[in-house]
């Protein structure tokens, strides 16, 4: 019985050490969020060292080149981005803040789980255990005024959607008639470009309506930087959406 209690006690210490030796803040994050990783190397072979580096890899979701670009041993100027910051209050605690998409130079769809550990300048100086972190998926959130694509120039085809089911205005939400879309273009001074254009919206069903424009072609102008638009019921022009807008980018 005494031996059993002793074993349980030792296991408890072990578990307590694991719990204190690594953490991520926030605990849940997406590939585009900044996350701070904290390693406590007390009691490990890295204790007392001041140059500690992050070694990381994509553990799930990646098909090739799944190591972080900074995974180079021994550490050098090429691994500067992976060097961790030593805590002033506890020299055995090290932190690093990364944004996974930037750190791994991978897209969010290629990162479902990452593995991390802390190491010295060279493997011979020691390393911590591996820690695996789930990456939360970026969630597609439907909106009442979805645009496709989400970024465009005034010389691109853009599809403007109305999702009635998400409208807060109940008249709009339950309108049964089809819609037309009233669109106004603006230049960089906020001045209107050409006349307001009205286009019929396609009723896709399930409360989804859309129209497509290619601003420079639709308005026959090359100085458009933004548009404002609203969906209007063809049966009752008092049933309208809010005014939506789309700012164009300078893409190459």
């Amino acid at each position, binding site marked *: 019985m005494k031996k059993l209690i002793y074993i349980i006690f030792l296991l408890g210490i072990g578990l307590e050490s694991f719990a204190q030796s690594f953490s991520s803040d926030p605990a849940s994050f997406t590939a585009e969020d900044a996350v701070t990783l904290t390693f406590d190397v007390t009691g490990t072979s890295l204790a007392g060292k001041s140059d500690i580096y992050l070694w990381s890899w994509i553990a799930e979701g990646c098909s090739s080149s799944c190591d972080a670009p900074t995974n180079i041993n021994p550490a050098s100027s090429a691994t500067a981005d992976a060097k961790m910051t030593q805590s002033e209050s506890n020299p055995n605690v090290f932190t690093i803040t990364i944004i996974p998409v930037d750190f791994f130079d991978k*897209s*969010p*769809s290629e990162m479902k789980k990452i593995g991390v550990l802390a190491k010295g300048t060279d493997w011979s100086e020691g390393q911590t255990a591996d820690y695996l972190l789930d990456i939360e*998926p*970026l969630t*597609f959130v439907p909106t009442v005024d*979805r645009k*496709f*694509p*989400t*970024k*465009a*120039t005034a010389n*691109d*085809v853009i*599809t403007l959607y109305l999702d009635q089911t998400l409208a807060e205005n109940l008249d709009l939400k339950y309108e049964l008639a089809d819609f037309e879309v009233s669109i106004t273009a603006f230049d960089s001074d906020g001045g209107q470009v050409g006349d307001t254009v009205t286009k019929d919206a396609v009723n896709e069903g399930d409360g989804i309506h859309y129209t*497509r424009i*290619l601003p420079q*072609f639709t308005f026959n102008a090359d100085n458009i930087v933004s548009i404002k638009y609203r969906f209007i019921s063809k049966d009752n022009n008092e049933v309208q959406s809010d005014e939506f807008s789309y700012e164009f*980018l300078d*893409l*190459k």
Partner: protein
Amino acid sequence: MKNLLIIVIGLALIISCTPDEFPPLGDRPDRVQQLTGAWKVTQVTQTDNDAVRKGFPFFAQQQDITSAFNFTDLEIVLNVDNSFAVDAGTAPNVIGMTAGQWETDDAEYPSEVIFKNGGQQMEIGIGSFASIGEGILTLKVIRYEDKGDALQPVITYEYKLKKQN
């Protein structure tokens, strides 16, 4: 009798293992010559590369916009003398020029068609030669966002064209 059988089987195996003769590979296709001709758009798809990177649902990643602006009106003629002509009909002229000179970035392994007229120039990527034997060509136009240290694709247009002659 048993020995005779072994000999017959052995001979049969030797004869059947004679290597086949492979037909000659033929000359490397002249890709630039394959590009010449009159091409008419049959399909246009638009991809939101950001949505693809984020793993969003397919309907948020890609759309067929062929019928949006009568893109099937658009015809591009690439002549042997390296002149070109574009007849957009009622469609937007995605080349931005109606005539001029055309060339490729590489004569043997072209990956881009370059359209020029005076100071104007437009490069369009060649998406695929896979079906060129059937008179189908895919061209690609990609829009990039300048992220400071790199250009990131934001929108990709794929134009499928059918040879007219």
